[in-house]
């Protein structure tokens, strides 16, 4: 009985110790909080521009709330927003995405990572993005329409990445870890484009994935394009599914979908006695469509696929070596790259007689 009572007392103490007010002087319902779910940061001279957006509340027929403010630091920019906003209180604990404008990404990245790591509110595994060719403010305040905003679009992008690659876009923790370690990190890049849907006032802006930014220290060294993602996955041993157009020697264009491949790494001894890195990539793909119809031979298709994968992989390796930034984790040893690919099936149409 005493043990039971002790457990009850301990359990009763926990909420108070965890910060729950038992007798709150200022009662505040959840509906009085503005739950910020995406943030954007841009640098304009000495000031940081902070944008915040909430998700739409479809149950109450309310669209997303979009806020923006500026200050010499992120905390002051947030205070600026809180002062000028009619919202009762901003809750940033559930921020699920942070965007950086391209022009200021290098300069603001360190400050943002520092703020996220120190923050009591923000999670360290929040995904970080760089908006190519625009400011984060533009993306957060103008993407979407009255019904949905940037949060819903970013959630959809994150869910799609999870389904396709089996992992979320690189998080602040991962980027901070890379920056604190060898200094080189990849950050998911986005761009703004016109959505397929038309809004009441015309075109609607939407956010699209646009490769990865290669960042070291406070500099963006370059970008990997969206078409490089397949080679990136293969070289890093990630398990993504990609669609790839292939042009065969006879001019025929075949679109294939690759299954998650496997990458085997091992150290080799070269004839000169030095060590080289052996990378053996193997994957299979299925045919999605053949332009102009017709029949594709599996052998020719497999060879074209191997050639295309090798070309793409070597392009990334050359980029890594030329930038001197080991974003592929391959080091600087000589590389022996081999690719084997096969066509697993050709859909519901039999190509072979």
């Amino acid at each position, binding site marked *: 009985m005493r043990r039971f009572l*002790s457990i009850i007392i*301990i359990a009763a103490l926990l909420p108070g110790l965890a*910060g729950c007010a038992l007798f709150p002087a200022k009662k505040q319902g959840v509906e009085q909080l503005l739950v910020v779910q995406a943030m954007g940061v841009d640098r304009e001279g000495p000031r940081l521009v902070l944008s915040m957006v909430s998700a739409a509340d479809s149950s109450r027929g309310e669209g997303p709330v979009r806020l923006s403010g500026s200050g010499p630091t992120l905390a002051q920019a947030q205070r600026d927003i809180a002062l000028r906003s009619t919202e009762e209180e901003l809750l940033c604990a559930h921020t699920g995405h942070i965007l950086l404008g391209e022009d200021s990404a290098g300069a603001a990245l360190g400050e943002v990572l520092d703020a996220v790591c120190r923050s009591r509110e923000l999670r*360290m595994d929040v995904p970080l993005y760089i908006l190519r060719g625009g400011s984060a403010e533009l993306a957060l305040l103008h993407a979407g329409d009255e019904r949905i905003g940037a949060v819903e679009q970013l959630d959809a992008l994150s869910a799609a990445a999870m389904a396709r690659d089996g992992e979320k876009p690189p998080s602040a923790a991962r980027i901070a870890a890379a920056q604190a370690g060898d200094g080189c990190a990849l950050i998911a890049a986005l761009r703004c484009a016109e959505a397929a849907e038309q809004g009441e006032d015309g075109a609607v802006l939407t956010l699209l994935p646009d490769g990865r930014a290669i960042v070291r220290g406070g500099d963006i060294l370059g970008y990997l394009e969206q078409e490089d993602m397949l080679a990136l996955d293969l070289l890093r041993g990630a398990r993504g599914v990609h669609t790839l157009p292939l042009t065969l020697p006879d001019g025929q264009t075949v679109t294939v979908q690759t299954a998650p491949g496997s990458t085997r*790494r091992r150290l080799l001894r070269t004839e000169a006695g030095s060590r080289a890195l052996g990378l053996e990539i193997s994957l299979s793909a299925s045919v999605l469509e053949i332009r102009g119809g017709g029949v594709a031979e599996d052998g020719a298709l497999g060879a074209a696929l191997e050639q295309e994968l090798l070309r793409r992989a070597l392009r990334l390796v050359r980029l890594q070596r030329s930038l001197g930034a080991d974003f592929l984790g391959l080091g600087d040893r000589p590389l022996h790259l081999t690719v084997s690919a096969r066509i697993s099936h050709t859909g519901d149409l039999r190509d072979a007689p």
Partner: protein
Amino acid sequence: MSGPIRQNQLTGAVWLMLLSPALRLFPSVSAEAAGRWAPLCALLSVLPAGLYLALARRVLKRRLRGEGVSELVRRALPGRRGRMAALLLGLWLCVYAGFILRSGADRLILAVYPETPPVFFIVTMLLAALFAATAGEGGLVRAAMLLLAAAGLTLAVVLLFSLGSVQWDNLLPPPGAAVKPPEAAGLARGVLAALDLLLGGVFVGTLLLSELEPGGFSPGRGFLSLSAFALVLGLLSAELIGCFGAALTARLAWPFFSLVRNLVFFRSIERIEALVVALWVFPDFLIVALFLRQGARCVTASLGARWGTLRAFPAALGLCALAALVFALTAAPDGETLQRLSRTLIPAGNLLVMLLFFPAILGAGLRSGRL
């Protein structure tokens, strides 16, 4: 519920009390010293810790029935030297209790109650611990058994649900990646950090020995328990380095609580760090209560009063609480100083007491034939 305690209860209490310094100190210090090899440090420390346990066991089995550390010190060193030794040991226990008070307040401030002055948490915890210290070591051990299941389960759940965030490259670099091999000096510093904890476990166990049932200590089970705790330390370190990388882990003040902040259960429950931080109040509470009580026993033994027959113990307990309070309020006015203390003075003092001070006293007692 009274009477002597069993070894599994003693082990449980030691485990619970070690959980607080284990989360505070080891992950970041070992990651800073040994980088991605930090988990190895925990495993490498098992052998020296086992050796220490065996030596301690050989000496401590000479204690008389019901004799605690303070009485053992007085028997080993008679006269003024013994009184001084007991007083110094009591002082160190008060300093450590004061440090735990301040460190626990810092954790609550960082995670749950920002901008709150630490004095509020320090005084509240001190009063609660002071009340518990009057209950005796047996009562504290039994209280620890109540809390161990909750703390252990929480730790296990956090480690399990964080597995998905581990970047395996941070731990096991793929073949061919440029990886620095571990440096001997770094590994040694990491092992020392782990030893600080494991020897601390042996020391805390020693403080509780007077309550253990006669002949109830099995060295084999003691060693197994040490090894299991080292394994938990290794797993904890590996998971943190896997999630944050060694360089970032070394920079974070409380990497474990940063990990908890990232947890999401079944895509619906998240942000439970306040509850976990609150749970970690209890190990602090038990350490402070035990160290205050033991400090008071040392002070009483030093003053020469006979145990329990005079009013010396309550006065000594009040004195120890005052010393701990003064240390907690003055030693670390800010978080930066606290971090420095946590990484320098406190582990160094611990190792000094456990590896030099205590063995020297017991050694002197053995040489003179008093033990």
